[in-house]
């Protein structure tokens, strides 16, 4: 008996039938720029710990922080520990933390200081030696896009970004991917000059959510939905992302950007793409992205933007039992700001499947409650063999994919009201992932960081998708820029009247999610 051969392609311990085997990344480290930001402390660091706790990080995994702070490794370690203790999803286990902490390093310095990057290079080389990370580095740029150019340039000139034999370099960037088409292209060329396009991972954390991935399962693993998923049966689609919070401490970032750039450009258009795209040939990254790009490229704005878009700005009001200030009174916002905190727009898709079916997107801050959902609203039955009074209260059928919170799927249809008279009324049928599903299911960032380390790209939008999204949004932004102030809406409501008018003109109404 001779032992089984082992090659790069053929690992005898990885049997395709072995579905239990976890995907553990190969030896590597993660270099985190911008360690004090909200995202880093609330999402990235806890996600790394949770991955470690689930045994999905490679032995010797190391985390390097880089920031303009006069810190030693231990100080940074404390920051990570704090953030893990406060935000990790899984319980803090001393032995897991200790072994993770052994690989935590900190490099102090500014982005424009070449010496700091030399030190960073030495640090990761040291890690290669001490902890066997084998020259595989992921750079996570959790920093304002304005600094991308400097950091990428420094990574390049210090030699950190060069691929070496048998080792990889990857870069992770977060939204915003520019603020219009031009700046997005510029940003892409900055990062693209230093890293190959296959090594750039753009994080849209929505795509890491279980429910978003479930859109694909719902549509393409089932027989009962897809036949209805077209203009023959669908009346329109509403995609909503409502937040109950205001801008909080994000004034510096948010003012001048606004709701459309902040949310519609990335999250909502990605949701639209997944809802509207044709069936991909396979779920490989290239096939999935090809379909998303196809449908995004078929998007069209209505000609009259005044009638098919709406924007608003919250003014003071009562939100969930609390009196809150208006946008213009928030800290750091000038009284003349015309930044919109609510945006709604109608998009048409020029394909046979969707011709004549409008997609309404809306997002806003300080709305009634926090909810993200996709509602596919169906046409009324062509003929109702009931008396008119019997179906007075019957609305349109709908399939609602609830992204967050309370993740699941709702179906809305008519049912007879019990009693002697024939009366039909709307009822909901609910599928939930279980009441506490989110506690034990992996967080989006865990999935996405693991995918980066594994080099698995399907859940990351490609630059082409980003460009297509800006192409649809740029004319809207240009139109709004000429129209002065956004319409005011009271905090705690569902947006400005102009948004309701926009629907009314089409003979439709917004769902109350």
């Amino acid at each position, binding site marked *: 008996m001779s*032992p089984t051969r*082992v090659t790069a392609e053929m690992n005898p*311990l*990885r049997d395709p039938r072995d579905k239990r*085997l976890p995907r553990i990344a190969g030896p590597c480290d993660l270099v985190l720029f911008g360690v004090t930001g909200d995202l880093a402390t609330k999402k990235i660091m806890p996600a790394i710990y949770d991955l470690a706790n689930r045994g999905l990080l490679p032995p*010797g995994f190391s985390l390097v922080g880089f920031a303009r702070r006069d810190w030693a490794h231990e100080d940074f370690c404390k920051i990570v520990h704090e953030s893990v203790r406060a935000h990790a999803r899984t319980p803090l286990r001393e*032995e897991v933390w200790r072994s993770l902490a052994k690989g935590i390093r900190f490099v102090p310095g500014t982005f424009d200081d070449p010496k700091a990057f030399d030190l960073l290079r030495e640090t990761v080389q040291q890690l290669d030696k001490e902890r066997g990370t*084998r020259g595989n580095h992921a750079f996570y740029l959790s920093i304002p896009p304005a600094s991308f150019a400097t950091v990428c340039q420094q990574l390049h000139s210090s030699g950190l970004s060069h691929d070496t034999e048998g080792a990889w370099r990857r870069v992770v960037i977060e939204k915003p991917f520019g603020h219009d088409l031009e700046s997005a292209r510029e940003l892409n060329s900055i990062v693209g000059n230093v890293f190959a396009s296959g090594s750039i991972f753009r994080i849209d954390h929505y795509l890491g959510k279980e429910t978003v991935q479930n859109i694909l399962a719902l549509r393409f693993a089932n027989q009962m939905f897809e036949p209805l998923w077209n203009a023959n049966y669908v009346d329109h689609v509403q995609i909503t992302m409502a937040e109950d919070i205001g801008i909080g401490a994000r004034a510096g970032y948010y003012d001048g950007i606004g709701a459309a750039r902040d949310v519609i450009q990335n999250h909502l258009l990605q949701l639209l793409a997944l809802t509207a795209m044709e069936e991909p040939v396979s779920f490989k990254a290239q096939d999935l992205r090809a379909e998303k790009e196809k449908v995004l490229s078929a998007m069209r704005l209505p000609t009259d933007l005044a009638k098919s878009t709406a924007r608003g700005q919250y003014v003071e009001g009562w939100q969930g039992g609390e009196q809150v200030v208006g946008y213009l009174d928030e800290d750091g916002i000038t009284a003349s700001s015309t930044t919109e905190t609510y945006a709604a727009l109608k998009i048409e898709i020029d394909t046979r499947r969707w011709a004549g079916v409008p997609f309404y997107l809306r997002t806003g801050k300080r709305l009634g409650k926090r909810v993200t959902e996709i509602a596919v609203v169906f046409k009324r039955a062509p003929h109702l063999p009931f008396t008119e009074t019997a179906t007075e209260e019957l609305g349109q059928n709908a399939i609602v994919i609830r992204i967050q919170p309370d993740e699941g799927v709702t179906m809305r249809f008519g049912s007879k009201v019990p009693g002697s008279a024939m009366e039909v009324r709307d009822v909901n049928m609910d599928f939930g992932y279980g009441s506490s599903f989110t506690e034990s299911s992996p967080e989006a960032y865990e999935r996405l960081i693991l995918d980066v380390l594994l080099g698995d790209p399907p859940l990351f939008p490609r630059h082409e998708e980003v460009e297509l999204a800006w192409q649809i949004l740029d004319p809207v932004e240009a139109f709004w820029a000429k129209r002065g102030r956004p319409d005011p809406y009271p905090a705690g409501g569902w947006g400005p009247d102009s948004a309701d008018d926009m629907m009314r003109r089409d003979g439709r109404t917004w769902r109350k999610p």
Partner: protein
Amino acid sequence: MIVDLPSTTTAAVGRKLVELRNDVGAVALGRVLTLIIVADEAEAADEAIEAANDASRQHPCRIIALLSGNKRGASRLDAQIRVGGDAGASEVIVLRTHGPLAAHGNSVVVPLLLPDSPVVAWWPKAAPPDVSASAIGQMAQRRITDAAEVRNSWAEMALRADSYQPGDTDLAWTRITLWRGLLAAALDEPPYEPVIAATVTGGSDSPSVDLLAAWLAEALRCPVTRGRTRAGTGMASVRLERRGGNIDIARPDGAVATMAQPGQPVRRISLGRRELAECLADELRRLDPDEIYAEALTKGLPRLDRGTKTRKGSRPS
């Protein structure tokens, strides 16, 4: 909420379930499977139900715990329903059978299975010799046993191997998933050399260690030695021998492992023992037959060099 139904019938239990569901809203919908827990003692069942409640947060399910009480006396069925805060994301039905009925537990389970949903049976302690042929086993797609809970685990696994049917699985196998992942990841990296021999060391009483060794023997087709440490210590270390040097993964303290490879520094990784609930949740994730387990169990185990002690046929202490 806990509702006791002493001396009852399954029809009454079913009615009560619907009633409770109507009272508290539609929370009981959306269950994806029925999990039957078969146990003799209430204590074992409670521990198992607790783990199942935890697991139900990932896999909403109806849990039916089937306990057999005193086999003498008249036939009687006592039931208890737990929903809401007392049942995680599941609903729990505890059924205790007495008298002649104790031998026909399957008859009280059938009316309470979720319609058209998979059935998973779990024996947290001792299981019948041929699980798939047992009355409960026959109605289940997936049958979970736990060789580590049985005194003579080696004999137990021989039984499982003899009677293996697709859908059988054992928690001793689930417990080593992370070890297997780590070993597979180690072979993903260069140098790509065949493994010429392997040693798997761990608690003398641990079926997990046997299964890991068996898995390696079957996948790598090389001699695998089963090393022994004190009973109760679980997995301790694995060595894969290659011409260029050995890969060593050692977990002396049961929590943190070190991984040594030629040309690489020693790397540490936390590799704690997996909790029961975690293992169960893992089991419920996939309901199709585990062919890799089948091969390790039926083909890998016979390949093992089990050391002198057991060759003589004596049970390791």
